[in-house]
């Protein structure tokens, strides 16, 4: 045991450090891009921000992906991934519609709770499979992606849920606002705040990071790895279920392709927001801003006049840029730490 620290406390003043950290933080960077996109689009077409529809859509459209991305982030932090969320969302959305058409008069709150539980059950299946068989989550959830979609196709067939099948109050929830903030967005933000707080402060949340940083060390250290991973998948499934209910309220129609491909958008939002795909780092705040950016760019590009065919390419470029940037910064960080260690050795 030597009494010299591996890394000396920073000699930079605290204010400077905080400012520097903020400048380097991914959340701020992505947020700035988001603001830039909104500003540029608004200059081109003021109604993008200032009309009633524009303001509402700006807040409302991302909330579906926001909820999915928060759940996905919790799973990715543990060095897993959940590719089944799109299918879970679709299946729950159909389940929601069926609840209304088969049980007229069912309270809306009950439908939200049942949707959450239904999604949680699907997530539990993922979690148990991953932690019992110790197979990469990528493979397990790719399997359940198809299985859940298959169940959905068998259940729904060519049937679809139409707006007429659901109560007016529920559909109105899709656009209802409180102080110009859409209710569905408020739901999304409450979820974000709760999960963000848990990950940042709670023991369980910190353990998720520890597991993702080094799963073997987490086992050796005695962390309840399986339990935490199952928990992460259940949370992710439950949020995908919630997103399913939100989907139904927002779009008013559910057919068997609901949520198709959403899982990749959720992963994309998390990655853009600075969540490392190999786990252990990243925040739900970042993922949330990533979701806002991803959705808003998709909405802004046609307004700016970029053709349909280029829009996907822009999203792809954004994801790649985010990952390359990550790689660049972590390599620089690594070089610095190595240099610091060498310096200390030489000094000794």
């Amino acid at each position: 045991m030597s009494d010299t620290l591996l890394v000396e406390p920073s000699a930079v003043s605290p204010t400077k450090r905080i400012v520097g950290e903020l400048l380097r933080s991914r959340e701020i960077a992505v947020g700035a891009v988001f603001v830039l996109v909104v500003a540029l689009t608004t200059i081109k077409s003021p109604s993008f921000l200032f009309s009633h529809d524009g303001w509402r859509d700006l807040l409302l459209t991302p909330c579906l992906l926001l909820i999915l991305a928060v759940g996905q982030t919790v799973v990715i932090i543990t060095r897993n991934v959940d590719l089944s969320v799109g299918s879970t969302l679709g299946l729950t959305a159909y389940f929601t519609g069926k609840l209304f058409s088969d049980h007229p008069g069912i309270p809306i709150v009950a439908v939200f709770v049942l949707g959450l539980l239904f999604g949680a059950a699907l997530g539990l299946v993922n979690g148990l499979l991953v932690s019992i068989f110790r197979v990469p989550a990528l493979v397990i959830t790719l399997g359940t992606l198809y299985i859940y979609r298959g169940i959905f196709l068998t259940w729904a067939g060519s049937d679809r849920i139409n707006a007429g099948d659901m109560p007016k109050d529920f559909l109105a929830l899709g656009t209802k606002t409180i102080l110009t903030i859409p209710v569905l967005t408020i739901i999304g933000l409450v979820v974000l705040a709760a999960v963000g707080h848990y990950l940042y402060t709670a023991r369980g949340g910190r353990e998720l990071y520890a597991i993702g940083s080094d799963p073997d060390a987490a086992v050796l250290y005695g962390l309840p790895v399986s339990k935490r991973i199952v928990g992460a998948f259940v949370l992710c499934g439950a949020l995908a279920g919630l997103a399913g209910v939100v989907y139904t309220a927002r779009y008013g129609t559910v057919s068997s392709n609901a949520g198709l491909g959403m899982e990749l958008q959720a992963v994309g939002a998390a990655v853009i927001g600075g969540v490392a795909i190999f786990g252990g780092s990243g925040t739900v705040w970042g993922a949330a801003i990533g979701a806002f950016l991803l959705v808003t760019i998709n909405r802004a590009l046609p307004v700016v006049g970029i053709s349909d065919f280029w829009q996907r390419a822009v999203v792809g470029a954004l994801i790649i840029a985010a990952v390359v940037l990550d790689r660049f910064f972590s390599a620089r960080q690594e070089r610095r730490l190595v240099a610091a260690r060498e310096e200390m050795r030489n000094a000794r």
Partner: protein
Amino acid sequence: MKIRNRRVSALAAVTLVASLALTACGGDDSDSGDDSSGSSGGGGDATSVTFLPKNLGNPYFDTSSKGGKAAVDEFGGTFEEVGPDTASPDAQVQFINTAAQQGVNALVVSANDPEAICDALDEASSAGTKIVTFDSDTNPECRDLFINQATAEGIAKAQVDLIAEQIGDAGEVAILSAAANATNQNAWIEMMEADLKENHPDIKLVDTVYGDDDDQTSFDKTAALLQSHPDLKGIISPTTVGIAAAARYLSTSDFKGKVSLTGLGTPNQMREYVKDGTVTAFALWNPEDLGYLAAYAAKALVDGDISGEEGDTFEAGKLGEFTVDADATVLLGEPYVFNADNIDDFDF
């Protein structure tokens, strides 16, 4: 491990034997025809007509079978409806075989695949059953007659006429299509463009966007259309998914009642939006009439009034007289326009 292996192979063997037995059953014509359906075979005086839709439990085909049954009742025949649960290509084969064994006079089919059911239809045909296809055709040599719901020209013209009427024949319109490579939609769009240029010089087509026949994408594209073209007066959506999604967005936006929407939709999807005033009229063919006409055409074939030659004519009850066109097809007529007055007469 060994036991498990043995079990697996036993299971595989059983499955194999079972599937062999099933195929044998399906393919064997000489089997005595007393199936569980227990129909007393064809012949006799009454014309027996069997409807075989793509799948059962599909409101669209429930409606066409309703029309078929009405026609068969009118001319005093016997009507039966059979079909698979899912619309997979070869699922219809066993039903065709059964109908042929029962010796029904005519089989009215909506083909799940133009090729896959051809052999079975040929066998039924050589057993003396007349084959009529409707809604979805097989290869022309596999059937006696095809009842075509609408021509591409008719569909394109109906939509242009509707939008012209709704916006007063002047102003900006846009098209919300299915996927960018959807064959039908692209053919219609081309014809609509030509029709607009020729007959409606004051209507300007400003944009064509693609919703990929996905509720969510179509919904978001509608929002983008309204954002990027503030002077837009009308939207044409020649796809049932697109028009419902666009209607949902419009119904909750400031543009409700200001921007007209029309296209191809089904009454169940659109009922809500026709009633709340978002949409005044949209088009599609009437599946009930389609089934009705198919049944009368089948009867005419069985009676020998027509043989499928071009120029043959026959009476179809309340729909009047029809002429067989080239390639042994019969056209139902102009698309049917649904509006607030008639939408409640339909349930599909």
